[in-house]
């Protein structure tokens, strides 16, 4: 009986918490507003279902609680009711899955004009490599890593020489230009995650993974490693600053090339 009241309070409390608490997505700074929209849609559908089910249970607890002489109804099956509920559920699932898959199709489809930015993870540091004037990143392989080549860039690949190498520093990105992050790891799994961009992807030694994003808001954002990578995992942070194209171009001129580093 008290439980019926508590259940009503749980529903009211949860809904109020959802709308009134200060804890929510960080302000979006990328093109992935669709992800937020799908999330909000999912909150809406699941919130209604949660409230409906729990409130109905509360109603049953109050209405059908045991009293002297009360007897339950004997009704093994009700095909019609079961079919209606199944159909409704299927409808709700389709309503969430369909937009989800459409947005995923965009997520996996990298625009042709996206600029490549390589991110290299190692315990517990973020490094970056940008293509130089030739617009191409040179080849890289963990087998080539040594004292003077900590990122395993292939020195024999002509495309490598003008690559800009940023070890452990800050990454800048131009605003409103799509970026394809090419992700590598030299040691264990890591995950390149900028909460404000909404996107993330694991980095696997021996593979190159990727995702794309268009930063839409200038500002500085924290990069978090989101895949357990040893005892220093939570200290593996970095900074990415989204700037205007002019500031970005100027910043590029101050970076060192792979050729500079090896000469």
């Amino acid at each position, binding site marked *: 009986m008290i439980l019926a009241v*508590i259940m009503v309070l749980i529903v009211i409390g949860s809904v109020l918490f959802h709308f009134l608490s*200060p*804890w929510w997505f*960080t302000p979006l700074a990328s093109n992935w507003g*669709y*992800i937020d929209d*799908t*999330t909000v849609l*999912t909150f809406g559908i699941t919130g209604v279902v949660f409230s409906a*089910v*729990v409130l109905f*249970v509360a109603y049953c*607890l109050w209405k*059908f609680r*045991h009293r002297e002489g009360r*007897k*339950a*109804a*004997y*009704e*093994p*099956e009700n095909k019609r009711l*079961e079919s209606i509920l*199944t159909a409704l559920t299927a409808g709700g*699932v389709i309503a969430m*899955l369909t937009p*989800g*898959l459409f947005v*995923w199709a965009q*997520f*996996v489809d990298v625009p042709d004009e996206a600029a490549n930015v390589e991110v290299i993870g190692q315990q517990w540091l973020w490094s970056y490599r940008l293509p130089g004037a030739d617009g191409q990143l040179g080849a890289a*392989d*963990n*087998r080539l*890593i*040594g004292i003077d080549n*900590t990122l*395993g860039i292939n020195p024999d690949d002509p495309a490598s020489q003008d690559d800009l190498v940023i070890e452990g520093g800050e990454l800048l990105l131009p605003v409103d230009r799509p970026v394809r992050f090419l992700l590598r790891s*030299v*040691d*264990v*799994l890591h*995950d390149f*995650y900028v*909460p*404000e961009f909404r*996107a*993330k*992807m694991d*980095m*696997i*030694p*021996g593979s190159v993974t990727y995702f794309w994003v268009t930063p839409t808001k200038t500002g500085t954002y924290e990069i978090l490693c*989101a*895949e*357990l990578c*040893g005892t*220093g*995992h939570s*200290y593996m942070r970095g900074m990415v600053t989204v700037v205007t194209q002019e500031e970005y171009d100027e910043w590029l001129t101050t970076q060192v090339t792979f050729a500079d580093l090896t000469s």
Partner: protein
Amino acid sequence: MADIPHEASVSAPPAEIEEMELPHAHGWWSTHVFSQDAKVIAVQYAATALAIGAVALVLSWLIRLQLGFPGVFEFIDSERYYQFITMHGMIMVVYLLTALFLGGFGNYLIPLMIGARDMVFPYANMLSYWVYLLAVLVLVVSFFVPGGPTGAGWTLYPPQAILSNTPGQQFGIVLMLVSLILFIAGFTMGGLNYTVTVLQARTRGMTLMRMPLTVWGIFVATIMALLAFPALFVAAVMMLFDKLLGTSFFMPTLVEFGEQLSYGGGSPILFQHLFWFFGHPEVYIVALPAFGIVSDLISTHARRNIFGYRMMVWAIVIIGALSFIVWAHHMYVSGMHPYFGFFFATTTLIIAVPTAIKVYNWVLTLWRGDIHFTPPMLFALGFIVTFVNGGLSGLFLGNVVVDVPLSDTMFVVAHFHMVMGVAPILVIFGAIYHWYPKVTGRMLDDAMAKFHFWVTFLGAYLIFFPMHYIGLMGAPRRYFESSDILLMPESAHALNAFISIMAFIVGFAQIVFVFNLLWSWKHGKEAGGNPWRATSLEWQTPETPPGHGNWGKELPVVYRWAYDYSVPGAAEDFIPQNQPATVTKEAPA
């Protein structure tokens, strides 16, 4: 054989095979310790699982000390923190939940509920427990070896798991893998037993479609475990080889401290596929027994037939089957081919349909029922709330794009604790309050039970519901130090402290439960044979607690399903399964 489960019959088919001879105990040791009686083995499994579960509970406190009050408790350094979370997760999922549902409830309830004298392979059944105990002991030993237990996270992802910078890199990880291998070997002996017993040892009249849903849940979960655990077994063996022999099944070329290691050519992603091929069915290996048990608790204590029995059975079977083709939803951001996302998101969301049907049918069983607020019912109702909550947050994580920002955050931690931590554990408590009188002949104390329920249910909800929002902000999971994440406002730290305090309160309330278990064993109210006035066979045994062989001279004969509650025209509000239909019985609705 009755085609319609809820139609009772006047007679039962003759026995098809002769009864087998039971092994009889010849002394104190073989009666109480090396027993081949499933009921004793069940209690051994349950006691061991609860004991190691207590370790996991203490570990969760230590985790929450760090998360709620970072830097205050200096003995918790990052190495220890990762050891705590790893061992907490592994113990809870494998050594507590799996062992308790299948080894504990499975052993006790399957023979009694289907009218068998015991499991069909009693010796293998005994061996199953002792190998499980050995697995637990190996796990415990890892706490005391140099370097301590592994801190690789319960998912044990390579290359990380076997390299330096992971605590327990020397011995801990080896003992972890050996322990898992032992666990799986032990489980296989028990699991084959449960499956064959259900298929072969049902008493006369107990058709598959007359079995209580508890048995269905445990039966399907066991088959799933038999098919899923081998993937983990293989992964564990291969990782042991990588660690001890220097093979490279999961190890690509990589550099550690600027040093090239001799590994090369292996695939870390392969391990993830193997792990989750086990790991996702594992979620349902825990959930399906809980689904089954909670169905029976709700039906019995609402004095009403379970609503839509056939749908419930098929939902269990379909969920079991589908759960084998959804595993990579744990890997949306793993770097696997992104097109997998379309397939796995679709299969994952399809599972929501049979799962939702189960929820509706529990709720519709309450509807027009005669609800008694007994401790088992309270816990069952708590399960509905937490399971619906956790199931719905699964729709976020299953829907691939929504998962991208939430994956690897505290949202995931909140989700899986709600859906496969809190929800099944509430069922375990409900089930213990429900069947303890059969096991011991005495009732658990009602007042202590209610206190235990309120603190556990409300506390757990207050812990895990707000936690979703910490993850929504972007706070990653498995962070030793999250207080300095830039996007976390000051208020989020207060929330973390609140969650930690609630975790302590809920944890301490479990002491009342344990005290109740021990105290009532001797001092509880006498229960009699059928205190809940339930229909299923385990309540119809000639003795309580049931003796060796369960049924005295004659096996029970079954004439009806397990849900004849409040049948119109019947003298009482329940008709046991072993009561034949009267010839003049009114036509069923």
